[in-house]
């Protein structure tokens, strides 16, 4: 008689489905569910509109841009024309734009990347006489300002043509070229993104990562609290005689996961509407078109990737929360477990935020494969950077393998944990439960 109790013929269905249905119904009908849905929707809408608010506040901020040109006259001409044109065009006070003429290219590049300068404009005269500009954008330089710089470079070229070239009447006007490079932003696998593209992707990524993190933590705690409440009310004693630990854990995770998914959609839809309205509202407020419409980057593949990262990430976290919930006797004691679990999630969330705004360091690339963090970090890389197909497959593969392993462990801990009362969970007890759930 050494076999496990689960040797009893206990197929996962239909009991896991019955448990899931009970969990889903109870959750969706509860008042806290309605309240949290409303609160999170409002939060998501707030985050979606945050960039507009920042730009509104930012309207009078001074932008300092270095100008480096092939010759002194081109530099001086560019400086005076850009200053004049941009101060008028942007409608700000005279000191909204500050242009400084500089000569050391490398020093300027490093100033931009480290935030001492908002941007740098390199002007060269091509063989045909066409002016060629390269605009290096710094951290925090909104895409709307980049567009003003584009207008300014056009003015420089046009005025130079009217002053110097056009009198001879032989050379037609050649519009200047403008290449915009991110001096401090995401580099998408070494390929510089256009600043407008970066801004739009960062916005979308931030909204989605915030929602992903919040919902995964909240739904995970629902699972843990649900298990702890079943122990506290002692209904667990009846449950474990009616269904196996495997059926109970999986039913709970699926039922609460579906309730979460429903809430998720209820949060995401208004957030997406807010993002879609971003463009018209910005124009209405006189902030210019600024960035690309934030939803322009969303494709079917993107939605599938996001949805699957949510489902897999939630499942992984929820299984651990279920096991953790089984180790406490009262819902209040969950705080012991909530903190380390939240820290684990926050570590992934912070890396995702770093990946959104900075480059792709080696550690962030590694983190994008680690199962507890990949839902956040790999998803961020998908949003703002370029991800090789093998990288995506590896991240999904590792996540799925971890779910299977963690599920087996969580069910063992749960089977032992639900019978224990009155003791606080310590590492030794958890380990003992994993090694010998019946001992």
């Amino acid at each position: 008689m050494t076999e496990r109790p689960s040797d009893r013929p206990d197929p996962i269905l239909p009991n896991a489905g019955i448990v899931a249905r009970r969990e889903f119904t109870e959750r969706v009908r509860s008042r806290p569910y309605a309240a949290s849905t409303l609160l999170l929707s409002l939060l998501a809408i707030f985050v979606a509109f945050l960039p507009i608010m920042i730009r509104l506040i930012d309207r009078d901020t001074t932008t300092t841009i270095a100008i480096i040109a092939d010759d002194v006259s081109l530099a001086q001409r560019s400086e005076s024309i850009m200053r004049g044109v941009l101060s008028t065009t942007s409608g700000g006070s005279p000191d909204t734009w500050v242009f400084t003429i500089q000569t050391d290219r490398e020093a300027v590049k490093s100033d931009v990347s480290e935030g001492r300068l908002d941007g740098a404009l390199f002007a060269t005269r091509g063989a045909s006489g066409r002016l060629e500009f390269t605009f290096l954008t710094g951290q925090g330089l909104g895409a709307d300002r980049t567009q003003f710089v584009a207008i300014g470079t056009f003015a420089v070229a046009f005025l130079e043509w009217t002053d110097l070239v056009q009198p001879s009447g032989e050379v037609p006007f050649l519009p200047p070229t403008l290449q915009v490079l991110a001096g401090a932003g995401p580099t998408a696998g070494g390929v510089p993104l256009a600043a407008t593209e970066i801004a739009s992707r960062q916005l979308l990524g931030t909204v989605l990562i915030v929602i992903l993190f919040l919902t995964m933590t909240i739904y995970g705690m629902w699972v843990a609290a649900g298990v702890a409440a079943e122990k506290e009310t002692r209904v667990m004693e009846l449950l474990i005689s009616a269904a196996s630990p495997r059926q109970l854990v999986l039913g709970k995770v699926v039922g609460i996961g579906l309730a979460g998914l429903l809430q998720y959609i209820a949060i995401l839809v208004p957030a997406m509407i807010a993002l879609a309205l971003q463009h018209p509202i910005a124009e209405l407020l006189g902030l210019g078109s600024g960035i690309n419409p934030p939803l322009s980057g969303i494709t079917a593949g993107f939605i599938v990737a996001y949805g699957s990262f949510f489902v897999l990430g939630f499942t992984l976290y929820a299984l651990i929360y279920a096991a953790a919930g089984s180790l406490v006797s009262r819902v209040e004691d969950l705080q012991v477990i909530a903190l380390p679990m939240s820290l684990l999630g926050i570590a992934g969330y912070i890396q995702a935020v770093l990946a959104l705004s900075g480059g792709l360091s080696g550690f962030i690339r590694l983190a994008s494969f680690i199962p507890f963090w990949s839902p956040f970090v790999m998803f961020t890389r998908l949003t703002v950077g370029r991800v090789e197909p093998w990288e995506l497959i590896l991240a999904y593969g590792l996540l799925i393998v971890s779910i299977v392993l963690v599920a087996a462990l969580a069910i063992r801990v749960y089977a032992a944990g639900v019978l224990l009362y009155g003791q606080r969970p310590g590492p030794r007890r958890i380990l003992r439960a994993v090694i010998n759930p019946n001992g």
Partner: protein
Amino acid sequence: MSLVFDDLHKRFGVIRALDGLSLEIPKGHIYGFLGANGAGKTTTMRIALGVLRADSGALTWDGADHRSLSRATWGYLPEERGLYPKMTVLDQLVFFGRLHGMPADRAARTANEWLTRLRVPDFATRKAGELSKGNQQKVQFLAAVIHDPEILLLDEPFTGLDPVNVVLLREAILELRARGKTIVLSTHQMETVEAMCESIAIIDQGRTVIDGPLQDVRRSTGRQSVILATEIGHSLAWTGDLTGVRVIRPGIDRVELGLDPGVDPDSVLKAAITRHVPVRHFEVADPSLEQVFIELVGHPPDMDTSLAPIVDHGAGLDTDVDPDASTQENPAA
């Protein structure tokens, strides 16, 4: 056809919960499972249900290993009561019925029938959290029987019930027995066991101390007891001085005496007549189950809930209480 527990062993760390427990419970019987707290009753039930596994030993029903049986074979009323407080009674009964393989409509019909039988049909739409503890216990009993299991394991089913509900529940259990169910009653309450059970087992420290038909167990010690009553005003204190006789239940005009093996009950009657005591009642009986339990196990089954003996430090508690009597006398019985 019977439920057989064969040499079950189970340890939790250094604690030996079951130490070779063996029992045979005949099909269709109400079987009393007696033991003090920590004797191993709940562990045995959890092993039967498959919630725990034994370290060694076998458990079979009609010759088949218990792990090959469906969960629906068993109905379990745990000692720890609990329901989902925010769910209606009907919803939870249907939920548990469905977990045991019942279709939802049949589970609802059966639940309503049972609620009506227990005279609480209006509970169906009420949330469990709104009911009194005793009524929640009735609902939990229904959760254990709704799927019509072959074997019922009832852990302290009457604790916390008022006398009216005790009668209702007893009737329900007897009806289930009449329908051929095998029922295991784990309890401290000797009076319940004597009234309801055909066979019993007394277990202590994970071992079977004795098992068999109730009558055989009661006679197993070879002792008899005598109940003697007299008119008021005639002391019966002398009965304690008789050789081979112990006062089990002292009283002013009525005593219950335990006789050592070989002591003739008539000798007590003769002693009364010799002392010119006007005897109004004289009854020779088998010892109570409680007496058998104390003799075999060494303490009452619910010793934890009886008063500890008074320790006289010479500081003034003036009492004639015999320290031994307080351990023998069980106020709850």
